[in-house]
């Protein structure tokens, strides 16, 4: 009972006025059973929630809309994470999520990939190891390290950084998962352990400034790593600065109509809305067009909060479909993204929905790399 009481207080649920703004904004509530407002009410009535068998808890993408919208600063998604923690502790979790967590613990990545192949993508690119000393640590992240498609983003960013003469290095095979999603699926213990390890690693390498490929790594280093006193930037922030300072100039042009999809962990959760757009608009030849649901009202790609490891209770109905319809409605050839999760989920959805013939999904760095 005492532990449950602290759940209500820890998530500040007593402040809730049941206005429903969380559920009204939740992208999952429209397609699954997940109703966070009702969960809060249940928790308040019963002193806690018995989450056993509540599959919809795993639908949450941790997009942060409920937190952003809540007028009482309740932080509804904290409750979801807390309930997931009880399920993780009880061992009742979707097998694919369990496998991902085990893999993070054993291999430092969620995809059962060999740690010693983590830096293979960078071979022959002339990227130095951070141990040699560098101004900036480029934290690549798991997907861009191992996934064929996402590696192109990492390679593009390297090309851009080299073009701009940035003194940067990578952790190579020593890099491990940032654990943003590990925390969000409720594996607090593993998260705490990994934070400790990474912090020590960064310290031992003398890292002062990190840039990340993924908004998820960016978010967790910036907001969730206690005691990490480093400058943390998403690459869009860093590259926008390079362009603004005249350190990165374009030599080519892209004659394409491009629109931009805001990643939740970059936009809604960290307020980085302008830099990605500034970069796209600075590419010569580009015609930039905005969609309707952007910035604070952006749609979620459904890749966050552990959903890269689990398809959810309603995989048939995808938010990506609505997204592509919007891309087409503004007449864009390219939907630019700035997140490896968005990149992979949208590409998959594009192929499944037949949108891949009309719309290309490309990371902003791929666009930039083509024009320098």
């Amino acid at each position, binding site marked *: 009972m005492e532990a449950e009481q602290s759940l209500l207080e820890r998530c500040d649920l007593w402040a809730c*006025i049941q*206005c*429903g*703004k969380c559920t009204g*904004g939740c992208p999952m509530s429209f397609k699954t059973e997940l109703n966070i407002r009702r969960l809060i009410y249940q928790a308040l009535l019963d002193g806690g929630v018995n989450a056993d068998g509540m599959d919809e808890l795993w639908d949450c993408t941790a997009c942060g*809309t409920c937190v952003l919208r809540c*007028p009482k600063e309740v932080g509804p998604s904290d409750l979801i994470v807390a309930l997931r923690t009880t399920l993780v502790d009880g061992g009742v979790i979707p097998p694919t999520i369990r496998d991902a967590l085990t893999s993070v613990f054993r291999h430092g990545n969620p995809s059962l990939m060999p740690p010693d192949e983590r830096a293979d993508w960078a071979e022959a690119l002339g990227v130095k190891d951070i141990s040699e000393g560098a101004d900036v640590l480029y934290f690549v992240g798991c997907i861009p390290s191992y996934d064929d498609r996402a590696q192109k983003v990492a390679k593009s960013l390297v090309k851009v950084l080299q073009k701009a003469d940035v003194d940067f290095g990578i952790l190579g095979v020593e890099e491990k998962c940032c654990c943003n999603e590990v925390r969000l699926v409720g594996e607090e213990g593993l998260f705490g352990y990994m934070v400790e390890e990474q912090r020590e690693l960064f310290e031992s390498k003398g890292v002062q400034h990190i840039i990340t490929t993924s908004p998820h790594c960016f978010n967790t280093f910036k907001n969730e790593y206690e005691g990490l006193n480093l400058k943390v930037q998403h690459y869009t922030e860093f590259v926008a600065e390079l362009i603004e300072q005249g350190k990165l100039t374009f030599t080519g042009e892209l004659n394409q109509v491009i629109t931009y999809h805001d990643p939740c962990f970059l936009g809604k959760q960290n307020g980085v809305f302008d830099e990605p757009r500034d970069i796209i608009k600075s590419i010569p030849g580009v015609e930039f067009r905005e969609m309707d649901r952007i910035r*604070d009202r952006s749609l979620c790609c459904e890749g966050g909060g552990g959903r890269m490891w689990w398809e959810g209770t309603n995989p048939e109905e995808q938010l990506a479909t609505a997204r592509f319809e919007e891309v087409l409605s503004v007449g864009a050839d390219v939907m630019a993204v700035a997140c490896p999760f968005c990149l992979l989920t949208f590409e998959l959805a594009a192929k499944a929905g037949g949108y891949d013939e009309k719309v290309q999904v490309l990371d902003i760095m791929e666009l930039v790399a083509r024009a320098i």
Partner: protein
Amino acid sequence: MGATLVIGAGIAGMQAALDIADAGFKVYLVERDPSIGGRMAQLDETFPTLDCSSCILTPKMVSVGGHPNIELLTYSEVVQLEGDVGDFRVKVRRRPRYIDADKCTACGICAENCRLKGRIDSEFNVGMGKRSAAYVPFPQAVPLKYTIDSERCLMVQRGKCGESPPCRNACPAGAVDFDQQEEIVDLQVDSVIVATGFDPFDPHLKPEYGYGLYDNVITGLQFERLSSASGPTYGEIKLNDREINDVVFIQCVGSRDRNLGNVYCSRVCCMYTAKQAHLVREKLPDARVTVFYMDIRAFGKGFEEFYDRVREERVQYRRGNPAEIHRRGDRLVVRAEDTLLGQPVEVEADLVVLAIGLVPRADTQALAELLGLSSCEDGFFQEAHPKFRPTETDVSGVFLAGCCQGPKDIPDAVAQGKAAAASAIVIMSRSGSALTPGEE
């Protein structure tokens, strides 16, 4: 004879000024805008009685303007206050109107001939109508004198407007005078009443509702102008020739919101929304009218009865605080959870009205410093005691009236204006027969 300075000529300040003046004391009524009247002048009908706002306000404004004991200082600001109760010395800055008020007959020919005619957003119509740089804010303005907006006027800004300023050339009374200078007026008063009102909440701060992005998402104050016979559509509920079949009202925009630091309830939005829903029903009998609310606060005299009436006029109240608005085709989609159904819903709309709350004026802090007042946590001026001294401040002889002390409706603002007037009269009645220490 005793004198009181009243700062702000909205309904609270005007009422205070009238009561004091009627009691035989002198009032200096300072108003920053070119006309007195305040926010109430912008409203269409008032809840719950449905009186026409300007019909009941205009006679009061005329009384204020013509009262022998009231000296109006419009287009003016208090810039300094020194001294103590019974002997406050005040400096008031009078901004130049660039129009000689004694000569101006309010014929409007200057505005007709202004080169910026139709190019400046009308503050009175909350951006839904245009004006010239030479203007009166609204037809019932007191004083009914034109003003040249120094921030927009080309002549004032650049020292040049064509060959020579057409307003000056056209004015038959020769009233346009670009040589007018700012003036500092010194006053000596026994007491001060602060009645500076509120700012409407800026809904840009709730980007999820797309205000400023969608032209058919408007504020409650804009709705008042749309619905008003003197407004930009002469009272018709229409926007850019769009046919309006579905109207959605959203309550509590900018109120009860910890994210914004506006934790308080704004007290008027439930009822003004109920009234606006009624007006829509009256003007668009076949429209579907939906009000999204969190709680309905119909606590005043006749309020619950009015809320009953509005629902029976087929206004659909749905419990839920909408999360966002986006576009579908040429219509808006309001996304919310209907918390009574426990289901997320999408409601299509042609017009969305945001029931924006009341916030402290942006210059509250500056004025607090000028007058030595303190503000509450919510940013409004702090009264001396929340129960027994609701219109007094910690500064002896300085009183509060109206929304500068906290959100309130018209009857409460009027009551507070009258209470502050009574307090000021007490002081002035005693002055001359020295204040007994400890008695005050």
